[in-house]
């Protein structure tokens, strides 16, 4: 055993690309989870799971999800929030755009390193919604809702691991083993 790894993944490492059904089912499940009747006191801690799953697929299946799906999901979220039509759609499109632009880079990182890159995005989405709501004169913002972004950052790693299992994606080659 010389420890050298082939440049291209081979054998069991070659995962089938995620299919459309899996992507749609996970996105729908995430949307359903956010639609559950959560207790009022916990609302501000509830991370935007739909966005997180969307970003995961933007990174790992950029051919299957894109700005169109982000827009549609945002619109649905807007209707459930009843605040302003287009607010979440804008935030989702923005987040999807940034992720898709950085897709090549993000794909190469493992989940904890992705967290560092996506933290700004997950937090920025909450801030954007709050700021735009304020700008369009929807009363006083409840800034506690920013902590939903923090919870989302903490949950990215477990979520990415879970979705890795679902999509059958093998773990990234261990850096130590490569060297």
């Amino acid at each position, binding site marked *: 055993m010389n420890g050298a790894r082939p440049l291209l993944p081979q054998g069991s490492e070659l995962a089938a690309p995620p299919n459309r059904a899996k992507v749609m089912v996970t996105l729908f499940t995430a949307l*359903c989870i*956010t*639609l*559950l*009747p*959560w207790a*009022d006191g916990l*609302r*501000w801690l*509830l991370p935007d799971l739909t966005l997180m799953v969307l970003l995961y697929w933007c990174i790992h299946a950029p051919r299957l999800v*894109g*700005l169109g799906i*982000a*827009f549609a999901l*945002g*619109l*649905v979220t807007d*209707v*459930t*929030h*009843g*605040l*302003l*039509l*287009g*607010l979440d*759609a*804008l935030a989702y*499109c*923005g987040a999807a*755009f940034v992720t*898709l*632009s950085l897709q090549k880079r993000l794909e190469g990182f493992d989940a904890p390193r992705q967290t560092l890159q996506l933290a700004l995005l997950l937090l920025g989405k909450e801030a954007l*919604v*709050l700021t*735009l*709501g304020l700008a*369009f*004169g*929807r*009363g*006083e*913002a*409840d*800034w*506690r*809702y920013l902590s939903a972004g923090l919870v989302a950052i903490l949950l990215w790693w477990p979520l990415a691991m879970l979705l890795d299992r679902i999509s059958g994606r093998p773990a990234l080659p261990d850096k130590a083993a490569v060297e």
Partner: protein
Amino acid sequence: MPHTPQAPLFVREMGLPSRFALYVLVCLLLLALDARYSALAWLRGGLNAALHPMQRVLAAPWEWSQDVAGFFITHGELKRDNDHLREERDHMRITQQDRQTLLAENNNLRQLLALPARPDTAPRVAEIVQTVPSPFARKVIINRGQVHGLAAGWPVVDAAGLVGQVTRSYPLTSEVTLLTDRDQGAPVQNLRNGLRLIVSGTGSDKWLEVRFLDMHADIKEGDLLYTSGIDGTYPAGIPVAQVVKTEPPRNTPFARAYCRPLGGVGRYRHVAVLKPLEQAPTPAPAPAPAPAPKP
């Protein structure tokens, strides 16, 4: 490698940035249309009607668990509730007797004064099915909508007092903006001296405020504020708030009074939606006096 005739050699589609710009434009258009012109009620209503069954299904297990939990209620609780309800019923009977005589007297007096009859409102009971997960608005969703005859603008009350107002009605559900929302206000009258005021929400469930109060206004701690009925939306005589403290003017020429809402804003599960008055009790004066009919 299998031959794939659909796959073009050169990708002919817009680049990511231009597609993004397009979507941003659409979003901003939607935002502007919704915020400034409220022109998208149909889109919102349609999407909401489509989502409603899904939300009901998702909420069902939670409701069942509530029902099961409610089944195993202790004897002591039942007895306490029973006593409480009996007490309340006796109390209400007494006030009801009073009400009958007062109503009759009121009708007589109105007939004597040739005033229009006091409009009657038939309440429709609705259940709060959901709160809106938004950092801005204090809103709830009730399970009655256009199908049940509800429309935007109808007042919502509970057993203790005013709760809010229907602000959007979808086919099967309606959105109620609570009285405590910052943009919500109700015209009230001080029960003690009949002073007319406007109570506004503060964004907190516990507080309401009277914002632009005259420096010398006669309003004291403990005063009860009831709807005055002069806006043509809320019927008169619904309890709204109790004054908790008054604040003398500091940097502004106006004083402020802080009140506690009397209705269970954000507490109860069932509310009643009232049909608003048919016509405003104080019609605008006619611009020119009508010519007297020739004899």
